[in-house]
């Protein structure tokens, strides 16, 4: 009975030594990535974890065959390190997973933004974002074409050629402020007059953009020639 148990004990150590060595080689041969598992830190902690049990099982086997090594003396301390190494592997893997999720979300947002910009720039109607003061924050290609808009060298300011917008309340020179309103509107008629007397009639729709204070922070305006 005792002999059978002794054989089992040795078989367990031998199997452990082989398998932990195989695992360590597998981990060493696994390519790492910074944005997915396994990261370099997780990989080297895994090498340390499997390495601890390569040493422990080798030392136990050595003892069984009468070979006492210096590892025998530190075996218990090596095993004590293992839970900490395991926690390190779990934490490094979790951090890599979170980082990978952030990257995936950022890529999805970028794709969604690019798609939206393709739709907006390809639309035949003019689309503009106006700030609360009626300054143009963004204009698509059709808006630039219809209103003769130009961007400055840095692309941070978009301005018109100095036209006058005529509304029911009168005429406002060189500003689109009359288009910014707290309520949405559809297909409102406006006339834009260029300094050289050229006139374009527009059908304009607008949707206000509210900021966190519920004040009108700007307006999304779409328009086409009437």
């Amino acid at each position, binding site marked *: 009975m005792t002999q059978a148990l002794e054989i089992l004990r040795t078989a367990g150590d031998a*199997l452990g030594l082989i*398998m932990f060595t195989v695992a360590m080689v597998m981990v060493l041969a696994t390519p790492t990535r910074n944005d997915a598992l396994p990261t370099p830190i997780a990989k080297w902690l895994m090498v340390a974890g499997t390495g601890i049990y390569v040493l422990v099982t080798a030392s136990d086997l050595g003892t069984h065959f009468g070979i006492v090594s210096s590892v025998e003396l530190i075996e218990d301390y090596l*095993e004590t390190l293992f839970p900490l190494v395991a926690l390190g592997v779990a934490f490094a893997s979790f951090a890599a997973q979170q980082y990978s999720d952030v990257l995936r979300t950022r890529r999805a947002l970028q794709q969604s933004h690019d798609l939206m910009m393709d739709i907006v720039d390809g639309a035949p109607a003019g689309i503009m974002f106006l700030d609360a003061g009626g300054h143009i924050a963004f204009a698509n290609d059709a808006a630039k074409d219809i209103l003769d808009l130009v961007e400055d060298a840095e692309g941070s300011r978009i301005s018109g050629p100095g036209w006058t917008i005529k509304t029911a309340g009168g005429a406002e020179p060189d500003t689109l402020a009359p288009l910014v309103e707290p309520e949405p509107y559809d297909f409102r008629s406006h006339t834009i007059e260029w300094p050289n007397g050229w006139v374009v009639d527009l059908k304009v729709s607008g949707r206000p953009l509210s900021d966190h204070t519920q004040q009108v922070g700007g307006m999304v305006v779409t328009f086409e020639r009437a």
Partner: protein
Amino acid sequence: VSVEPAEVFRLLLVAIVLPPLVILSRRLPRTRANTLIVASFGVICFSYVVSLLDGGLLQPPMDALQHLSYGVAGTLVAAGTWLARKAALEERERS
């Protein structure tokens, strides 16, 4: 039953490390590789408990069980790391 201080300390450390380890590992993707590696850690923890009991009459069977646990844990971690490596290589090929 003779209990080594290092064995008690090790088990105490596992008790401290286990809750955060369980929380973190539950948030990882549930792949077969991860399951096998976590299971391997569980078997190692089992060997720590068994090592506390290997005194007196229970010594031979508990000792054998403890060392058999190394074999089982090694097999599980080897299978887990093999699957993880396969998945990492496939992922690299895709990207």
